[in-house]
């Protein structure tokens, strides 16, 4: 059915639907970024979804439930996000300018995500530090949960949050991606061989003073 359907007619409808402002969420799949396929969704308020290894069917249900049933693949509304991501992956962009839409998140999550958005390129912070900045120093675990549910990873840089001992700890998109992104940011200066013993300590370096004053962070 899909094969015989005119692509030109299909694209024309999708573009018209977006141009008339009739969509709750426009989304598209970027099939081959350096960290694999990404599903990107944009609402009227900004970037509302970025997911790794997307399973479109489940994603669409979720987007419809959160933002409204008019969820449609349309590429034009995503032009800006796509460009900024391209630049970021090419190392030419250190800061995202697109607005993010985290309206549907609970208040606490929004507060933590707002704090997270201030963690700059090349820097890292810890779960505990973010917890302290948002009112409860002992809520590191809760901060971890917020990171895990971050609707727009990369742009809200939860990959820059690591354990107090410098270990990468965890990542919604898998630790390989976290490492890749931190390396891209320049926060990991060189590959450190994974220790054979059970306490993997990743040397996470702060990129202060031009990256020279490297030290264990945590």
């Amino acid at each position: 059915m899909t094969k015989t359907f005119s692509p030109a007619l299909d694209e024309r409808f999708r573009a018209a639907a977006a141009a008339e402002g009739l969509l709750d969420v426009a989304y598209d799949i970027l099939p081959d970024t350096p960290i694999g396929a990404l599903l990107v969704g944009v609402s009227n308020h900004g970037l509302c979804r970025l997911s790794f290894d997307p399973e479109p069917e489940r994603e669409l249900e979720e987007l419809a439930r959160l933002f409204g049933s008019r969820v449609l693949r349309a590429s034009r509304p995503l032009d800006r996000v796509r460009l900024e991501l391209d630049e970021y992956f090419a190392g030419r962009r250190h800061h995202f300018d697109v607005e993010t839409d985290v309206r549907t998140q609970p208040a606490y999550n929004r507060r933590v995500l707002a704090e997270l958005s201030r963690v700059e390129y090349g820097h890292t912070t810890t779960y505990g530090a973010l917890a302290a900045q948002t009112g409860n120093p002992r809520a590191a675990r809760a901060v971890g949960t917020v990171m895990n549910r971050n609707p727009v990873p990369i742009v809200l840089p939860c990959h820059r949050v690591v354990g107090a001992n410098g270990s990468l700890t965890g990542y919604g998109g898998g630790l390989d991606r976290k490492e890749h992104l931190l390396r891209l940011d320049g926060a990991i200066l060189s590959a450190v061989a994974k220790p054979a013993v059970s306490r993997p300590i990743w040397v996470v370096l702060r990129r202060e003073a031009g990256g020279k004053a490297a030290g264990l962070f945590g």
Partner: protein
Amino acid sequence: MTTAVPPFETFYETHRAEVLRFLGRRVGRQQAEDAFQETFLRALRAYPRLEHGEYLRAWVLTIASRIVLDDVRKRRPQGELPELPVEDELAAFEQLAPLTDGLPPNQRAAVVLRYGYDLGYDEIGDALGSTEAAARQAASAGVRRLRKEQQ
């Protein structure tokens, strides 16, 4: 339990090929493309007001039929037909919905499309995925049943 309204993408992917064929049979290929876009734009405008995900196929084919009819009206010389007000896509269904609530799905859809949307039995047959004769039968069975219930 009623079916939830699916994300528009799913609805569109499911019905677009059939809507295009349906329009192609009625207005020819060239015009069908414009009518196709208009059909799904109208569906998109009305979509947030849908209360459940049932009969979506009949619903979108009904919108397509109305666009064909509007198109025919526009083509006639001025004055021959009175200008009809633009009607809300959901209004007819909403008015008939409470009355036809107790009918079996097929009869209900046939009654609504016939008396709410003024479709011909051939179109209703298309919309319901059956035949003209079956559509006629379903509509009249539905009406008989409604009459009986009112007595």
